[in-house]
């Protein structure tokens, strides 16, 4: 019997603020899981710390709400620990681009077969409103009374430079598209990144701004062209939604590990003997 969204809802009360973009992401995820009809017991949602980081707690599947910024290496460990699992990493813009920014390129290098959904609200939500690496310089908030001193990062640009094999962007304001993209990302063979614009209605409500700026990537765009993807990133007029780039020809990390292990037909006793004999 196919699963329904109810199967993926956990018993824990959701603590997000009314209107938070993260609700849409959670609902899109429920919907995507229904679409893929995945058994909750074979799904692990891994996160860091933040409002967005609470997401796994609200999903009835296995979940791992780890520490701030370490969602990608933790998720990698889970996926290597049991390659049969569907592993979905979620986390905020602070979690993934500030404290955890160092792990992103390496997940990409490994092409580890997990999906990374970044819930980008252009703010530190859980700590109540400090500027994040994607906050606009003009933003005057608690930690930026005179505006933000740093220019903001573009997560799509980073993903392209890191050679992530599936690079896409979605928006909490377009739940169906977000959910479909999640399905594509999870089905992608390799590391997939869904940059998700998910406004924080309390500390940096960008719904209006994004509502005006977002533009779907035209269906005729060639998602296998890196140069075209780079051009789209350089476009300062539009905030494109959809799949920027996709490459399924590359080996995944688990395949790579499988190949190395595969060179050695199972025979523990023999290998122990050989191992010890090296020292005799």
């Amino acid at each position, binding site marked *: 019997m196919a699963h329904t969204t109810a199967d993926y809802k*956990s018993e824990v009360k959701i603590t997000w603020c009314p209107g938070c973009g993260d609700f849409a992401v959670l609902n899109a995820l429920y919907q995507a899981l229904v679409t893929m009809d995945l058994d909750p017991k074979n799904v692990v949602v891994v996160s860091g710390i933040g409002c967005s980081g609470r997401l796994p707690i609200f999903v009835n599947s296995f979940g791992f709400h780890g520490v701030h910024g370490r969602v990608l290496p933790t998720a*990698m*460990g889970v996926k*290597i620990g049991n390659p049969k699992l569907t592993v979905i990493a979620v986390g905020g813009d602070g979690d993934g681009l500030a404290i955890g920014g160092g792990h992103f390129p*390496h997940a990409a290098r490994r092409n580890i077969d997990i999906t990374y959904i970044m819930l980008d609200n252009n703010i530190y939500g859980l700590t109540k409103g400090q500027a994040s690496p994607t906050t606009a310089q003009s933003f005057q908030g608690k930690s930026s009374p005179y505006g933000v001193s740093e220019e903001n990062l573009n997560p799509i640009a980073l993903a392209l430079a890191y050679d992530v094999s599936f690079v896409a962007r979605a928006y909490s304001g377009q739940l169906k598209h977000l959910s479909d993209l999640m399905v594509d990302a999870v089905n992608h063979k390799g590391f997939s990144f869904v940059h998700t614009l998910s406004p924080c209605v309390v500390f940096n409500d960008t719904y209006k701004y994004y509502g005006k700026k977002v533009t779907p990537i035209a269906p005729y765009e060639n998602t296998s062209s890196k140069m075209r993807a780079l051009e789209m990133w350089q476009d300062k007029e539009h905030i494109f939604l959809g799949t920027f780039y996709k490459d399924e020809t590359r080996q995944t990390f688990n395949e790579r590990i499988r190949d190395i292990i595969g060179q050695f037909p199972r025979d*523990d006793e023999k290998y122990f003997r050989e191992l010890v004999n090296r020292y005799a």
Partner: protein
Amino acid sequence: MKDILVRIGGEGGEGVISCGEMLTTAFARSAYDVYTFRTYPAEIKGGPAMFQVRASDAPVLSQGAAADILITFNEEAHQLHGNTIRPDGLLVYEPAHYKPEGTFECYAVPLDEITLNVVKSKLGKNVVALGVCSRILGMSIELLEEMVRDRFGKKGEMVVAKNIEALKAGYDYVDKHPFKKDLPKFAAIKSPIKRIVMSGNEALSIGAISAGCRYYGGYPITPASDILEFMEKDLPKFGGAVVQTEDEISALASVIGASFAGKKAMTATSGPGLALMVELMGLSAMSEIPCVIVDAMRSGPSTGMPTKTEQGDMNLAVYGAHGDAPRIVLAPGDAEECMYLMIQAFNLSEKYQCPVLYLTDQSLAHRTQTFPWPDFKRVPVVNRELPTEKDLKEGYVRFKMTDSGVSPMALPGMEGGCYAATGLEHTEKGAPNFTPKMHTQMSFKRARKIEMASRESGFTARYGAKKAKIGIIGWGSTQGAIREGVDMAAKAGIPVAHLQVKMVYPLPEADIKEFLSSVEQVIVAELNYSGQYNQLFRSRFLLPTIAMTKCEGLPFYAEEILAKIQAVASGSEQPVAGAVLSR
């Protein structure tokens, strides 16, 4: 009893190390016990190199001090190590380079010349030296030839032949130019025990694999890098995966992730890396996910002296957490223990679902020692408790309160087992909860497990007298030097009882108390500046101890232990008292 110390010094790249290693294996194959030690130059490549091997027909407990034989490849080696030859020792020197003097016998061997004549290149010098050495020690040429074959076999017959020629040239030289000194001979003896020679790092890696470790995540760092390299090469043979991560934080994060998914997993690092793992050690404790962390300690603080030994990370291992994050800390005493205690490390981690820290140090990590062919069944493997069918059917409770504090752990893929692990305080079901009651209960649960661990038996080892005025307590790599020092003291008429603590934290109270009731004074010996274990010990047992610390980047010498014991016996060293209350 035969007991000899051979020290070899030269320039890095001249083969000092490989000469020493082959000599070591030759001793082991001849059924002698060995204990090696080496130093590392400041230079990345080149610089003065030193390798020494101590061999005996009785167990070798420490690296030894004065050399019976010093082989110098060049004059610098003599300048550096000349003062470490016994007055009645033998110095092998290169007459082309310099002319030494001393009470010891100076035995000229023109290594360069022999090498050039035979090998027609400078490269075989170390094998010539090996020939010289083995002849001096009375080893059989056949044994040495076999060893050369084993070592160079992969490089083809030509190379083997050349090296055997070099070996023989050295051997023959000694035959033709007898030395005077009367040295014990190390001809092969018959022994029922097949010996292997391994470093601490190698032994613990093998121990980990046999404990069932199937994921290793690590970042290179001296002196732990070779554990990573060992695992990269060998773990796949057992179906395991290895990742060289981007840093130590991701190493431990990935280990915890893999363990959450059901794999036994570990990482290894040294002080600076351990410092970066502190936050995640707390996550492992809080979410009750097993993991094993090896810390091959080096001299600190900060970058310190990366190639030098120290036991300075105990505080960090025991106390390194924000909040109370109970964990277990083990420390093996020698290479053999590195192997077996590693199985225990995994066992305890699985049994108590907590981080287990495993403290070795540079000297133990890199010295090699002989021990018998391993019997992996000696330590049965323990796996974490999984929920029963019933547990899973009746609404699974991940952090169920139990008497022992341990709750069955569901793994992803188990029907009915869904839960979210979290670093937040949580209910028995795992849901975030910040009530006073829950926090108290869960803090108790986490601490309870460690209290249970403190009652596990077999984590101390006694040595020396059963009852004595003086007791000496040590932990980790100092085991051998302390034992030897205790033996020396006994010979000098001072009986001493020794307790080696393999479980550094929690304290194995029963054993320690029993030990304490058998002595009148306690020395706590360790290789760090502040006496870290001494503090931990005093805090629990409230006894005025005598701290013996050393902070030189070097292991203890047995002679130093003896000297301390003598000082205490004579009353010139007094315990450090505490304060007094009114009344």
